[in-house]
């Protein structure tokens, strides 16, 4: 236990330093469209709590996006992380980037129940990876239940980062290479007023569509930019 916290700090420090060095060269593609969709959602769902969800591997790119664009991933959003190595590294990067983090203490049942209860009852909007602790690329059953209980507007966020370095750090991590393009797509909000199994399937499909949209948008906008140059 004593060795884990320093390890998370060291890795977090290295990742944050890398992100800060590379960030200025990363081009945000389609940010205007993403921000416009987000503004419309905020307008039509005024006073509602939002639950922005994404794949674990999108976590660091999204923080990078948030450090450049204050709208969608602004400082009123708290990112949820757990106390696994990957989660603590994420928390460390968040802290160093001046972002807010919400801890879920997964190690023991009592603290986890306390943290989940507070999360469910909070009115704060949150960003959360839905495949944390695996299987990656699949919406977890517990996340579907969390979305159902939070009674928030669940919005999938898809990203495409290219070129990227892909690492395995407890979970999958994507880091931009210098000059990379980061495309963010805000998917359609998911109607959570259904049973858990249907909701899980909807959340999965919603995120797959948003991720696919980010890929398509990335290609279209990049080609348009090349043609205009």
């Amino acid at each position, binding site marked *: 236990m004593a060795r884990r916290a320093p390890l998370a700090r060291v890795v977090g420090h290295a990742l944050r330093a890398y992100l800060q060095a590379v960030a200025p060269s990363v081009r945000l593609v389609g940010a205007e469209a993403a921000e416009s969709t987000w503004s419309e959602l905020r307008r039509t769902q005024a006073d509602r709590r939002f639950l922005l969800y994404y794949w674990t591997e999108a976590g660091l790119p999204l923080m990078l996006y948030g450090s450049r664009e204050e709208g969608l991933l602004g400082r009123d959003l708290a990112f949820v992380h757990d106390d696994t190595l990957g989660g603590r590294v994420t928390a460390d990067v968040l802290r160093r980037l001046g972002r807010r983090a919400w801890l879920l203490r997964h190690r023991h049942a009592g603290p986890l129940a306390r943290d989940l209860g507070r999360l469910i*009852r909070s009115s704060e909007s949150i960003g959360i990876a839905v495949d944390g602790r695996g299987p990656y690329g699949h919406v977890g059953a517990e996340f579907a239940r969390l979305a159902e209980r939070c009674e928030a507007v669940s919005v999938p966020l898809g990203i495409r980062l290219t070129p990227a370095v892909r690492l395995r750090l407890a979970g999958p991590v994507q880091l931009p290479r210098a000059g990379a393009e980061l495309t963010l797509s805000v998917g359609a909000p998911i109607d959570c007023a259904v049973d858990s199994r249907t909701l899980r399937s909807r959340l999965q499909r919603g995120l797959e569509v948003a991720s696919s949209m980010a890929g398509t948008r990335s290609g279209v906008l990049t080609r348009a930019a090349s043609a205009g140059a």
Partner: protein
Amino acid sequence: MPQLEARDAVVRVLAIELKASESEVRAASSLRKELGMDSIAVANVLYALEEEYDCELELDGVVRLDTVEDLAGVLSNTPAPVSH
């Protein structure tokens, strides 16, 4: 609160959460394996107990929360609120 009283309270709240009858919830029942609860459901039960008994359950040091009896133990070890 005495352990027996706490156990009855937990069984009652669990039965509501699980939409089951109280006879289906035994003290030795495993929350996850037998009752099919995930951590979200456990969190909801804990908060339902807190609301009903107007207390804050002491959870921070609780490592084991596997059975109905474990939940009853948490409720039993929580001091009653000081009334003003």
